[in-house]
């Protein structure tokens, strides 16, 4: 499916707008959250899972099937792992609250 010029231009438009938007929102993430941010974007970068799924789903040739299969596995690992890590990290961020019993034990 040869891409029409218009489709290409469209893609560029969307890329430019999304990039600009990304710049604006990410610049404002505080240092405190940079590691979670890395983890999150890492998970999002697995979006190629959409592509992999289609490749695998539509695959006729064995080649395509194998490649698609591996791709889906890999992408899934990335997204699942990525989100779990981010979630785990953020669960830990708390505002000041009464010291924990575990802590009292230290005394």
């Amino acid at each position: 499916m040869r891409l029409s010029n218009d489709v290409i231009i469209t893609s560029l438009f969307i890329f430019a707008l999304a990039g600009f938007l990304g710049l604006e929102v990410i610049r404002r993430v505080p240092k405190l959250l940079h590691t979670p941010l890395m983890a999150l974007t890492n998970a999002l970068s697995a979006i190629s899972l959409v592509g992999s799924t289609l490749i695998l789903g539509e695959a006729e040739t064995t080649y395509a099937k194998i490649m698609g299969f591996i791709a889906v596995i890999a992408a899934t690992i990335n997204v699942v792992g990525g989100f779990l890590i981010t979630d785990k990290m953020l669960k830990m961020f708390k505002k000041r609250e009464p010291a924990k019993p575990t802590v009292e034990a230290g005394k």
Partner: protein
Amino acid sequence: MRDNLIQLAYLVAAIGFALSLKWMSSAPTARRGIFAGEAAFALAIVATLFSDSITGQGYALIAAAMLIGAAIGVPMGLKVPMTAMPQRIALSHAFGALAAGLVGIAHYYLQRANLGKFEMAVLGFEIILGCLVFTGSLMAAGKLQEWLPQRPITFKGQNYVNFALLGAAIVLVVLLVFDPSRTALIPPIIALSLAFGVFLIVPIGGADMPTVIALLNSYAGISAAALGIVLSNKLLIVAGALDGMSGLILALIMCRAMNRSFRNVMFGAFGQLQATSADEGGEVGNVRSASFDEAAEILKASRSVVIVPGYGMAVAQAQHKVRELADALEAEGVDVRYAIHPVAGRMPGHMNVLLAEANVPYDKLLDMDEINSEFPQVDAVLVLGANDVVNPAARHNKTSPIYGMPILNVDQAACVMVIKRSMRPGFAGIENELFYDPKTLMVFGDAKHVVGELTTEVTGQRDAISI
């Protein structure tokens, strides 16, 4: 019709991704951000599964592959210790890149009959990026996990080799653009890109890996966007662009905080012990070291204590013990705060994550800019496995490799105690005159152990009194 719904779902998902990044801009909303991201991702996948081009057998394969992926991904996500975060992210990256690369390659084989020039160029670009991010991330993970030597591996004319590899790959892609049917060119392109990924990372010191990971993240994003252009899938383009930006910005922030350029990070082979280091920064003298109870005494005696955690705390996994020490001191009426240097540790926000894990409320973690002016009023600073980020050479020693990097001015406090195992230098591989400062006391030992001892000293003694 159905296809339109899928496209609309993609639109919603795209906005969801943007929102999730937006909500990362403050700790209270961050969790919501993650949920938005997860929901958007789920929506995107479900929508994709509805596309009628997927065959029955296709569904079976997809299900199988996803299950396998989840079976591997879930434990990876749950089991990882906070200290292994960087390498874990790098590894997970490698998988993502692998997927992206494979999709690109498969797309080529399926569509090579009717690929436009522009399309082919973008596709080639995408394949190169995917492959180099794949091996690059693996190398990064290896270095951080110390499966590979941390220190940069360098040989003469290295950069030429690298550019030769990349150049060759690009030339082949150009050939493909002129005649996409030249299938034979794909394997060499892949091989060259994979090799380039390896050689690109090998000469970079282990401690620069976080910067590298951020960069690779940005490449991964761009390749996803490229894939989106080729498949004319708008969601991929948006997500890719967002990622690309994020990685780029993080890498820039890190470099700036280390006062170094991209070039220096990528090709500087930073982090080899300098031979000269020993005789650097003139005032090298003899070192005063303190016993645990001396140190504990000083801490208890002070009104305000600032803890400066560094990479050492991460290595020793001392964060929980630190929290206990802080609580013990606060029970003694001491005001305890934490000073977080932007590049303390080996990841942006590394220290924040570790201390957060130990339930330290994040409003007690002060940025460098917030705390630096206050050190003169601080009675005692506890430097915990930090080194470069408190090295005064950065302020005045023009010859120092970290000259110009903003540091925590702990030497302005009344008393500085440094907990580390030896006199060995840190990541930058340079002497730290702070350790020879007359007001500095060294407390040698593994951070976790030392802090534990200090806690018992502090609490133990209180019990003694309270009897």
